[in-house]
């Protein structure tokens, strides 16, 4: 059945393309109106996608405000203890790429992937990548597929929750890869029209324990540090996911706005050519009628 269909369709398709090629010089009214219709439909789609992401963006920004203290608090610890990675020991690096599954949002995901690619270009023997979101996986798998440790997907459909983040943190700690230092790569939200691809440092337990400034904090033993690092990783991932989600929605909003604008321009141009061709057809027909009448008399 399927085969019959394709064999029937193939000559028709070839015929259609030949017809289109013949008419390229002077497009007919019908083809123009068909294109006009399809562009109008695309514009409708991009416009409604913009509306949707605008609503999602408003929510993501509200959520981000609430999530910021988690990130700031967790970062403070690493700043105050002034951890320096142990130079003598062999470094085992980990990159956590915070993106999402969904596209059509400008260069949000590419920015994250590019930053990691830049860092990997110099040295990538002892480095692993944890991909959060399918998009970073799709970009990084081509060049550094062997370095990918794990991929988390189904992200971006709904706003990220703390449970999502803690599941990811749990998997990061449970992969069996004992990283000494790591970086969370994410998009930091700045305003509706701008975001900045940035990194947050994370460290493994032994590296933290060796830090000299750790005495700033009272009554720390390795058990407390272990528990704290688990929690801080979860909160950092939660915070970066929120930042990423907010940047993504704002970026999608701009991208869809631009797409609708471009579609609008295209519609204007197509309407113009459509009207012009219509006029030309009418004029030609009139000339034919008049000259025919003149020939009779």
């Amino acid at each position, binding site marked *: 059945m399927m085969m019959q269909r394709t064999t029937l369709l193939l000559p028709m398709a070839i015929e259609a393309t030949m017809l289109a090629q013949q008419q390229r010089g002077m497009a007919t009214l019908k083809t123009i109106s068909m294109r006009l219709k399809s562009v109008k439909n695309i514009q409708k789609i991009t416009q409604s996608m913009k509306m949707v992401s605008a609503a999602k963006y408003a929510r993501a920004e509200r959520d981000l405000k609430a999530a910021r203290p988690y990130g700031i608090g967790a970062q403070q610890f690493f700043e105050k203890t002034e951890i320096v990675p142990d130079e003598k020991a062999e470094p085992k690096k980990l990159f956590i790429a915070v993106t999402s599954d969904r596209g059509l949002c400008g260069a949000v995901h590419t920015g994250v992937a590019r930053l990691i690619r830049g860092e990997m270009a110099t040295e990538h023997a002892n480095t692993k990548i944890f991909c959060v979101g399918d998009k970073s996986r799709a970009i990084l798998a081509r060049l550094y597929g*062997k370095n990918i440790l794990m*991929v988390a*997907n189904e992200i971006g459909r*709904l706003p990220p*929750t*703390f449970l*999502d983040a*803690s599941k990811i943190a749990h998997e990061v700690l449970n992969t069996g890869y004992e990283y000494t230092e790591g970086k969370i790569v994410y998009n930091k939200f700045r305003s509706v029209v701008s975001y900045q691809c940035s990194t947050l440092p994370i460290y493994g337990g032994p590296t933290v324990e060796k830090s000299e400034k750790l005495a700033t904090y009272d009554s720390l033993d390795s058990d407390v540090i272990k*528990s704290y690092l688990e929690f801080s990783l979860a909160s950092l991932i939660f915070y970066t996911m929120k930042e990423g989600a907010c940047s993504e929605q704002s970026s999608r909003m701009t991208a869809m706005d631009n797409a609708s604008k471009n579609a609008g321009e295209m519609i204007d141009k197509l309407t113009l050519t459509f009207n012009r061709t219509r006029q030309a057809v009418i004029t030609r027909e009139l000339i034919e009628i008049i000259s025919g009448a003149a020939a009779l008399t």
Partner: protein
Amino acid sequence: MTNAWRAAGITYIQYSNIAARVLREALRTELRTDAAKRNASHVKFTPWANGRPAPRQAQSES
């Protein structure tokens, strides 16, 4: 001194998540529906090895 959650063989994140879930379930009905949304998670994980998705050895509960 070992913590209770270490003794039970779970990490602090799991421990605090369980605590959070119990707290959410203990809320009043009108607040609980809203809080239940924060209890959901849809993330899926695929381990990778040698540039290919690898089968998971053991599914871990969070």
